């Protein structure tokens, strides 16, 4: 969950994980450590950066990631527009607590019932964050120009009077159906959300293949719902095992946190929690790396018992 700049040596590839998921890092320790915190991140790449957040499998946390990374970017001082491209099952408005303010969607914009700026819902907590929903839950998206419509939207956002947003984040629906094809159309880079289980990994690998076939080369992954206690007990694949299977750079590692469900139900993203939750901190770090187009150089693999000094019982 933290970013470390290190010089590492490559190790031979093992595509399938071995029985033991543990790894011994004694020989490979980071030489230099740089915590990227308490500093405004430097925006890399051309704006607006169009990022699609996808997974393949459902329920791994795409929408949660979109909401939290979007609001993290807004907190970091960048303007962001989140597009909920999950046509039939849109939930991003719920996670952001903006469900009562969505009156118009992209379908209405296309039909000419409203302008684009009327369909954008500005978050009152962080005014440089806006939400745009593709369609209402019970309406159908005309697929004749579904992908093209998103490209028009990106162009329109680029050319709007108040300036182009720094980030356009697209919440992709699950699966590789028409909704997925529509959502990835305008994207330049992708964030693949996966959980450390084999079902999610297989889908993630397939989706990565489709993204690469579609010309999206900048793909990073977020490993969600990681439990270090299960990794220690060798009941869960470690993040390094996941990376070994997918071969993608890591944008973030999100620990399992009960606060996620609570924040989802409240419509209040984790990153706005006070005090911050662990998963919220990890999302914030991931957003940080997304801004700087950085990736993780070291990961936390397991929990160690805290070493206590001889006089620890005196408070030492």
């Amino acid at each position: 969950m933290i970013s470390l700049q290190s010089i590492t040596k490559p190790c031979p590839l093992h595509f399938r994980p071995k029985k033991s998921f543990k790894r011994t890092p004694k020989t490979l320790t980071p030489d230099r450590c740089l915590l990227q915190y308490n500093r405004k991140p430097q925006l890399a790449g051309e704006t607006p950066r169009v990022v699609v957040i996808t997974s393949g499998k459902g329920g791994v946390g795409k929408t949660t990631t979109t909401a939290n990374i979007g609001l993290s970017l807004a907190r970091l001082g960048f303007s962001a527009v989140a597009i909920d491209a999950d046509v039939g099952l849109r939930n991003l408005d719920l996670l952001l607590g903006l469900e009562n303010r969505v009156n118009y969607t992209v379908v209405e914009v296309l039909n000419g019932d409203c302008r684009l700026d009327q369909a954008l819902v500005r978050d009152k907590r962080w005014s440089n964050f806006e939400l745009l929903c593709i369609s209402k839950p019970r309406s159908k998206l005309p697929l004749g120009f579904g992908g093209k419509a998103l490209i028009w939207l990106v162009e329109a956002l680029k050319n709007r009077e108040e300036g182009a947003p720094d980030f356009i984040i697209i919440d992709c629906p699950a699966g590789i159906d028409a909704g997925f094809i529509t959502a990835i159309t305008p994207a330049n880079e992708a964030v693949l959300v996966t959980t450390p289980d084999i079902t999610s990994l297989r889908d993630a690998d397939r989706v990565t293949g489709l993204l690469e076939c579609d010309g999206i080369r900048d793909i990073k992954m977020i490993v969600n719902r990681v439990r270090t206690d299960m990794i220690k007990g060798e009941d869960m694949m470690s993040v390094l095992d996941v990376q070994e299977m997918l071969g993608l750079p890591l944008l973030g590692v999100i620990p399992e946190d009960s606060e996620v469900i609570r924040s989802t139900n409240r419509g209040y993203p984790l990153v706005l929690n006070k005090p911050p939750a662990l998963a919220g901190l990890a999302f914030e770090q991931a957003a940080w790396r997304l801004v700087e187009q950085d990736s993780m150089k070291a990961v936390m693999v397991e929990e160690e018992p805290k070493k206590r000094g001889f006089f620890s019982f005196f408070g030492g």
Partner: protein
Amino acid sequence: MASIWTVRFHAAALLPVRSLSDEVQLRPELRMVSDCMSWNRRVACRKFVVKAVESDDDRRLPNDVVVIGKSDEDNAGKSQQNVATKLQESIGSLPVFVFSIRKLSGMNFTIGLCIVATMLVVVVRGYTTRKSSYSSPGSVADLVRRGQLRSDRRGISTPLKYEDPFNNPMIKVSKSNSTVEMAGKVYRLAPVTLTDELQTIHQKRRSRAYQWKRPTIFLKEGESIPPDVDPDTVRWIPANHPFATTSSDIDEDLAQNNVYQKHGVPFRIQAEHEALQRKLEALQNEQKLSKLVIDPAAARDFERPLKSHMKSENQVEHNTSNPKSGSNTPPSSHIGNPFGNKPSSEEMQNP
């Protein structure tokens, strides 16, 4: 203070001095009751007794003698008196014991007290730390409570301040960079082993495994493929797809213009408004030409606001003509009519 001590010690201290017979009988019993008392303490006690008696007044001596004499004479109540004297002795001897400890081993007692207090502190501290770590191990609330996390830096209204020095209280990395302490827990760090070569290998593997062409056209199942379209790029959408449809009632260029529109009234709203305007103008023209010939369907469409206006006027008229009825009482024409303002429209249509 000394006088109090002497008064309290008096009865017990006199016994061995004044009546030897009782002394012989009572002292072993006392010793059996409290074995912890040693002979040295007894000696010290006697010395103290002597001093106390000397310091005290002589009035109580005869009384004590009288009491002892009475106890000698009363053989029947001897056992009861023995119990009473035993209790008296035990009560009386207790401060002597404490006093002797204080006198002889005052330093030892102080040291012992310190040791006990230290042990108590260690136990209490261990208990509290264990309890706190058990209840909320490494939670953020725990961190805030311990002062490792400045919770006031986050919130809805106050943005993060980046002028802060490079000091994150949440994360502490060890000197060897092998562990990181985050949220009160220590995690082992492992470097990422992915290299560009490995990434390329994975990309090649995927490009071999997944041959995919982006669908360029969406067709409903049952439709025929256009002649100039590659069949591999067709995505078939079921006719009853819940979210997606291939049919659209709007032109592509028009949709693009709608998306790009920045100012003014949206296209459809404007078009509907203009259509209504045209229709209304046409209607008015027709009304001007021949007021009696009005299409009833068109009138029902366009005169809705007029109807409500007239209805409100009617209500106003009713209210003004009958001010006592109040606003809650509906007009008499509406009471028996479930369709509300239908008669008025009929009146309008058939003047």
